[in-house]
């Protein structure tokens, strides 16, 4: 398969400097964008069918089109959500460390499309290698007049800043991210107004994921038809897929949209380690529903994974094996989300620790038969629409699907008054 996002990334390869990046066609997409009207760039990205790679899969061009038309020179912002913290996800770190210019070019294209004068990269604190490489690339671009005033004589001004986080998963929620960038506690904001209308410091703001930005240079260089042609299914382009857990060769791989899950699991992840058997997987991070054997032949396609009862999310599989307790795995996930809740709304703040407590009781052999009904109640109570943001609904996705696919494990814990997986 043709490598697009990872053409400069691989073992033993250093991230390309500006001169090397440009020699291999880098910043051609950005130059093309500068020759187009901003609205034409938005239309082109719409036509490419690019969907957000942060997890929600929202069409990128449509997201941009919600920025209201304004006077030239009006203050607007573009923000990169580089706060990668979804459990089981490590694709953005790879892209940032491996090819910082590709990512910056994407941000610059987006900035031109929505006519943003200033951009911020909201980078998670731990990604210090990515921070150094991004800072170097920003400095290279500033010296080359690819950033700053009157970029390449186009009249377009854009300055870009790196902002490193201080922790907390909730910063990945785009309105919480904006609050954090403003120096506030990272609690989500009510929507509407959406950030495209009133975001950072009340100005129109577009927030996109790192991998989403990385696709843009190629779309602007080769066109939407080419991009659509990369996908094996209705979804366009390639995607960084991955697998962790007890697989033989955990990792991340750039593959076409629509690649069958079995291919990712067997061919790239090498199947299960010796002595372990496959039981199921979370298809796209810690906040996605379990899928099982019967789903392995499905393509990694947003709507197909959605119809199967889960979400493609970040596209990085977390594999459950037969020697790992599904109850304890769900307990681990619920504890993560309970800890990372911002505490703003009561269902999430009180509900997740309570669900975690019930799971712990079951895991430690003090479970009651009616606990499963209680847990099912939580999955409904914390469903979309009942909480301020998507954290709690995401948190109960693995729980609700574990109750469906691994119900006998929950029941055995209660009957045996203990965890059958701990000997």
């Amino acid at each position, binding site marked *: 398969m043709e490598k697009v996002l990872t053409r400069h990334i691989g073992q033993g390869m250093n991230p390309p400097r500006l001169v090397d990046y440009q020699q291999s066609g880098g910043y051609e997409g950005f130059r093309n964008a500068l020759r187009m009207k901003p609205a034409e760039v938005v239309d082109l990205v719409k036509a490419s069918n690019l969907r957000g790679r942060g997890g929600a899969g929202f069409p990128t061009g449509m997201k941009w089109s919600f920025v209201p038309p304004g006077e030239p020179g009006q203050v607007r912002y573009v923000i990169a959500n580089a706060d990668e913290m979804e459990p089981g996800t490590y694709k953005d770190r790879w892209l940032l460390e491996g090819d910082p210019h590709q990512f910056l070019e994407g941000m610059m294209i987006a900035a031109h499309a929505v006519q943003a004068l200033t951009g911020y990269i909201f980078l998670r604190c731990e990604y210090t290698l990515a921070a150094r490489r991004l800072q170097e690339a920003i400095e290279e671009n500033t010296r080359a007049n690819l950033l700053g005033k009157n970029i390449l004589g186009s009249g377009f001004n854009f300055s870009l800043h790196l902002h490193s986080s201080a922790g907390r998963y909730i910063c990945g929620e785009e309105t919480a991210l904006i609050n954090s960038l403003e*120096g506030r506690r990272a609690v989500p904001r009510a929507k509407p107004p959406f950030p495209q209308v009133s975001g950072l410091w009340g100005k129109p703001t577009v927030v996109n994921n790192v991998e989403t930005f990385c696709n843009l240079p190629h779309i602007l260089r080769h066109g939407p038809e080419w991009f659509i042609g990369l996908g094996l299914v209705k979804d366009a382009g390639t995607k960084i897929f991955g697998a962790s857990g007890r697989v033989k060769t955990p990792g991340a791989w750039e593959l076409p949209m629509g690649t069958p899950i079995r291919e990712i699991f067997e061919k790239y992840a090498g199947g299960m380690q010796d002595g372990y058997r496959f039981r199921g997987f979370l298809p796209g991070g810690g906040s996605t529903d379990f899928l099982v054997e019967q789903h392995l032949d499905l393509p990694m396609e947003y709507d197909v994974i959605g119809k199967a009862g889960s979400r493609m999310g970040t596209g990085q599989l977390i594999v459950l094996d037969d020697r790992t307790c599904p109850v304890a795995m769900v307990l681990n996930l619920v504890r993560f989300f309970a800890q990372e809740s911002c505490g703003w709304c009561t269902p999430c703040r009180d509900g997740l620790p309570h669900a975690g407590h019930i799971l712990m009781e079951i895991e430690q052999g003090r479970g009651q038969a009616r606990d499963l009904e209680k847990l099912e109640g939580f999955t409904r109570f914390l469903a979309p629409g009942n909480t301020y943001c998507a954290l709690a609904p995401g948190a109960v996705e693995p729980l609700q699907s574990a109750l469906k696919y691994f119900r006998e494990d929950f029941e055995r814990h209660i009957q045996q008054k203990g965890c059958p997986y701990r000997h």
Partner: protein
Amino acid sequence: MQERIEMITLEGRTGSADGLSPEEAAEILAGLSQYPDNQAMSIEALKIVQHHRGWVSNESLKAVAAFLRLSPEEVEGVATFYNLVYRQRVGTHVVRVCDSVSCWIMGCEALVGELQNKLQLTLGETTADGRFTLLPGPCMGACDHAPVVMVGDDYHFDVKAEAIDALLKPYRQKPL
């Protein structure tokens, strides 16, 4: 409007630098130029002070607030929200063991046990010599190399319990 945003000026934006070192004040001032207001710099300013002093004491927090012309309560509000701002003294090297799902599947609990043994402490504690603090940490974004341990800014991949001594050795040898 374009004129306004490009004329972000630092003049008159800061208050007294008492309680901050010249380096800390200079770094905070440099960072301010990225943002149109001072509040946006508050988290980064705390991180700058923490970088120099290891943690953020009440005195440090008040000094940051005064320099940024924010109320100490406002700054405390963000300081307590973000888990990587340490409001207690921590060791020279903060050892964080990822306890999220992929690392848990791959055996992070054994690593925590081994680290507690080797460092003679429990999670959340600091060694008597002030060298190490052991903390759990949420997903560190390297799940294909689970289990993951971070020491300060250093990532350690595919960590095995029997390799903990070797992992800690270079940090034990650094002067305090």
